[in-house]
């Protein structure tokens, strides 16, 4: 394989950035002299078409695009696994082993078989949902509050599921009243509050990034938003990690309850 440190690489990268900017401006439609650029319009999801009483927003479209890409990628990466992995399989194995290690330390169980599908799906979904906004023409689904709320609600319902599955119904219900029965309302309130905390953490972080990028985009459209977009890759992956970590902590609170 040729080494990639020739000066052509730099020229190629600059040409790629300019091509992405041109494609993005073409996909956005003719730049509006008529309509003024508006931050609230840039970040809010727009209704693409209506399906009876249902309004299909751009969030739904980018989520389904992302699901198609993830499913196709999982099929391509997973339909012939080798004993000596190639680069793609190596990367995926590294990520999955990282998630397994996270579950092992935070949940505190040795066998991660029943937790890995849910937690790993959350990590992959949020990570790619934060990153898909970098593709011109698509918009990441997480700055719409419905997506983080749905994810946080799935965490909210999965915690009793895993608790009951590992400790049994009685063992799970007992941890609400564990030291003394007066803890019951506090436990219930904290379960509801942490759902909203999960929602607003993901929503606010990604929305803040998007607002800063679109303000820079309105002020100086060509090169100035690029460092902020690079930083948004880091923030998106960090938020995916934090969401996964907190999910593991909450599941661990329910699973370790009766020990």
């Amino acid at each position, binding site marked *: 394989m040729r080494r990639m440190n020739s000066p052509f690489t730099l020229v190629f990268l600059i040409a790629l950035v300019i091509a992405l900017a041109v494609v993005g401006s073409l996909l956005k439609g003719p730049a509006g002299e008529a309509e003024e650029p508006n931050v*609230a319009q840039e970040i809010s999801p727009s209704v693409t078409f209506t399906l009876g009483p249902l309004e299909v927003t751009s969030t739904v479209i980018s989520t389904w695009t992302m699901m198609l890409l993830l499913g196709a990628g999982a099929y391509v990466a997973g339909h012939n696994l080798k004993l000596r992995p190639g680069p793609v399989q190596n990367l995926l194995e590294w990520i999955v082993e990282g998630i397994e290690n996270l579950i092992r*330390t935070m949940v505190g169980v040795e066998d991660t078989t029943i937790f890995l599908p849910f937690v790993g799906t959350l990590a992959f979904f949020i990570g790619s949902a934060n990153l898909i906004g970098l593709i011109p023409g698509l918009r990441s689904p997480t700055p719409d509050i419905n997506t983080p709320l749905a994810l946080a609600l799935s965490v909210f319902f999965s915690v009793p599921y895993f608790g009951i599955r590992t400790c049994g119904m009685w063992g799970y219900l007992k941890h609400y009243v564990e030291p003394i029965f007066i803890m019951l309302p506090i436990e219930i309130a904290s379960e509801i509050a942490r759902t909203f905390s999960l929602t*607003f953490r993901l*929503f606010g972080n990604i929305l803040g990034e998007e607002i800063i990028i679109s303000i820079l985009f309105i002020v100086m459209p060509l090169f100035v938003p690029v460092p902020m977009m690079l930083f948004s890759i880091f923030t998106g992956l960090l938020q995916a990690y934090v969401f996964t*970590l907190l999910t593991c*902590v909450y599941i661990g609170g329910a699973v370790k309850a009766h020990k």
Partner: protein
Amino acid sequence: MDWNNLPWDKIFVVLTVLVSGPGVIVGIVVPAVGQMLVAMSGLKAIARQPEAGDRINSIVLLSLAMLESLAIYVLAIILILIFANPMLKYVVNVE
């Protein structure tokens, strides 16, 4: 002074913006100080006992996420105040 004929909608918007700036400052500086304390004590603990680094690392990240959400709450409130203020319709409909 004729209080009824003042442009209350414009005053409301100006006050909202004037309040949002200091609100952002307070809401970012206070969690930043908290995050500084967490990172500082985490570093000290890892320097004292490097073999416990993994465990300390995850706890530090957890606390940082908790503190980060405070700043995010302020951001959400300020965004609602500026872009989607629910009280604005009462003020604008006065006259």
